[in-house]
């Protein structure tokens, strides 16, 4: 029980209360955080994942000329969504072999969905003829807004979880401030200590990343979480426009003139931007009121090569192609926000930096995972009867299984569904997602029904098997098996297959280790220099 009012020696008191705070803040939303971390980690490769999930789209041998592609898709949109008040294209780049477009639909009735979206083939300009799938964007969106709930709810949950994470990081650092000094003198203990060591190691060497990613995560959605300053200070439409211009390159549609006039050459406008930012440096083309005399076109710079998401764009008069304005700088606070936003998404990365992001983020995932497991390991020793734990312990233990091992199974199942669901299935893209959640729910059921240790081992083996066989399934169901990818130098598919095998191996190792785990250890041992290397014995620690 917490003894709140007692005076304690200062240092010990502070560390103890920070330790308690760390434990409970970490546990309460730990499962949500684990899922956010893991899906966020794989989202660093979301574009590659999307390419893998649309195997019908041929591998891109080089980035096509963005100016030509932009014109092609713009022409297609004229016939596809006539009268749309606004559309926006994300042009292909080194990592994207399709053009993603979204548009507002003309004259949508109130309550009707006023937006549409689609992926287009850069070579033809037509809608891509691939299986219906959300691709890697599913993990990306799940990472900050979850699923089966209004987007805003999901984003609030993600925000609360991130705030808990921020507090967990700060309180963790205060609790263990010593570990910075003796980082390299850790010894690997046994039982509870080894979990603690793993948790500490993962936290310390990734600390700059973990702190950065948590804070910048909050920054990405700060207007939602902290709208008060905006409500107090931004009162007129002009104010709002001024603020928007600091944040995004999306130009807002004004009033249409009602007079029809075709768009001037989009190709020329993009050419102009290419001269400024390089051949592959254009990110997005947005048009407002295309086909109207009042049309405007914004050509925005891509995210590559600069650590900032602050808007940089050229604004053109739509009907003549005349350059109206160059937007290349924003205010200091807006630029700070742009840099923090970019740091979170990491889209500026070259492939080595992206791998660094991925690996350190994976360490962060493992940090959250080891923290969750540690909660049960620590408490198991204190249970009056380890064979019959109390209900709270039981719940935590089972949720750990489903949210750690089960999530791996479910994510692998999502990729299996992508290859196995028939292409003609109605609402196919959503059924891929339903498969993910059905499998995840099943792992929870399995975790509840089986003895804890068995459930861990079985689910880890299942994840390993699903991942290891995914390249086989890919070879059987597509025309892009591993050997052909290798022969053609198709690095997205080669990388995906190798990654599956590497992750399968990781899960297999975890399964073997969990199985072999000797539940004997000495309780709460101090890492004293003389005793560390002796074989541990003593109090029984049963581990699930």
């Amino acid at each position, binding site marked *: 029980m917490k003894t709140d009012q007692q005076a304690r020696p200062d240092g010990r008191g502070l560390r103890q209360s920070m330790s308690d705070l760390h434990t409970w803040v970490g546990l309460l939303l730990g499962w949500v955080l684990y899922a956010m971390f893991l899906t966020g980690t794989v989202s660093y490769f979301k574009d590659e994942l999307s390419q893998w999930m649309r195997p019908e789209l041929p591998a891109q041998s080089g980035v096509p000329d963005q100016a030509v592609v932009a014109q092609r898709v713009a022409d297609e949109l004229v016939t596809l969504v006539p009268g749309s008040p606004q559309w926006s294209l994300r042009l292909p780049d080194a990592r994207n072999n399709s053009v993603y477009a979204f548009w507002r639909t003309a004259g949508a009735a109130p309550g009707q969905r006023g937006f549409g979206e689609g992926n287009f083939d850069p070579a033809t300009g037509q809608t891509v003829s691939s299986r219906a799938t959300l691709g890697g964007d599913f993990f990306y969106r799940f990472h900050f807004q979850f699923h089966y709930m209004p987007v805003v709810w999901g984003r609030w949950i993600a925000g609360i979880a991130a705030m808990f994470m921020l507090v967990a990081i700060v309180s963790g650092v205060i609790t263990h401030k010593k570990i910075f000094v*003796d*980082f*390299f*003198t*850790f*010894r*690997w203990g046994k039982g509870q200590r080894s979990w603690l*060591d793993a948790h500490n*190691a993962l936290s*310390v*060497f*990734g600390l*700059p*990343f973990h702190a950065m990613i948590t804070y910048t995560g909050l920054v990405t959605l700060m207007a939602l979480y902290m709208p008060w300053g905006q409500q107090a200070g931004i009162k007129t439409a002009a104010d709002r426009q001024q603020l928007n211009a600091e944040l995004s390159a999306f130009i807002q549609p004004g009033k249409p003139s009602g007079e029809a006039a075709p768009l001037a050459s989009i190709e020329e406008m993009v050419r102009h931007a290419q001269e400024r930012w390089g051949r592959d440096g254009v990110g997005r083309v947005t048009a407002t009121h295309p086909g109207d005399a009042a049309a405007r076109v914004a050509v925005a710079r891509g995210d590559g*090569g*600069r*650590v*900032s998401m602050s808007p940089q764009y050229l604004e053109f008069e739509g009907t003549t192609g005349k350059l109206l304005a160059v937007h290349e700088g924003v205010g200091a606070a807006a630029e700070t926000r742009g*840099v923090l936003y970019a*740091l979170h998404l990491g889209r*500026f*990365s070259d492939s*080595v*930096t992206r791998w*660094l*992001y991925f*690996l*350190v983020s994976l*360490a962060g995932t493992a940090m959250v995972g080891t923290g969750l497991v540690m909660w049960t390991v620590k408490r198991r020793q204190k249970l009056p009867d380890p064979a019959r734990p109390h209900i709270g312990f039981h719940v935590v233990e089972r949720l750990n299984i489903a949210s750690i091992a089960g999530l791996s199974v479910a994510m692998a199942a999502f990729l299996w569904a992508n290859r196995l669901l028939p292409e003609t299935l109605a609402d196919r893209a959503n059924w891929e997602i339903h498969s993910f959640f059905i499998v995840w729910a099943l792992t929870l059921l399995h975790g509840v029904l089986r003895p804890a240790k068995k459930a861990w081992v079985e689910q880890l083996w299942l994840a390993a098997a699903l991942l290891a066989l995914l390249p086989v399934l890919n070879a059987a169901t597509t025309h892009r098996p591993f050997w052909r990818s290798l022969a053609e130098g198709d690095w997205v598919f080669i990388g995906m297959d190798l990654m599956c095998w590497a992750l399968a191996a990781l899960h297999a190792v975890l399964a073997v280790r969990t199985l072999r785990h000797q539940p004997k250890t000495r309780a709460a041992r101090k890492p004293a*220099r003389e005793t*560390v*290397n002796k*074989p541990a014995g003593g109090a029984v620690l049963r581990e699930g």
Partner: protein
Amino acid sequence: MIHLSSFILCLTGFAALAFAMDRPQHDLFGRSLPAPATVALRVGGAASLLGALGLLVTWQGWGLGLVMFSGHTSLGAGLVHGALIVQGRRAARPN
């Protein structure tokens, strides 16, 4: 190429810093190294890390350079840490 050299600099830098500490010295050599050697390791390790930072920043500027640097240091420190653990466990195993 610059990525590789800065990674190696980070790795050797952290390895040097680790061996500048008493316990790893005992584990590996069975005794403390003389004080000048420890100081040299510490200075060399720090210089190595600074070298990596300098390399990355001159290559990509402060923004990208710092991001890459923190990635390489995290990975380098993690690997050194892992190696020390593996070494420690191997030494601890009864023969």
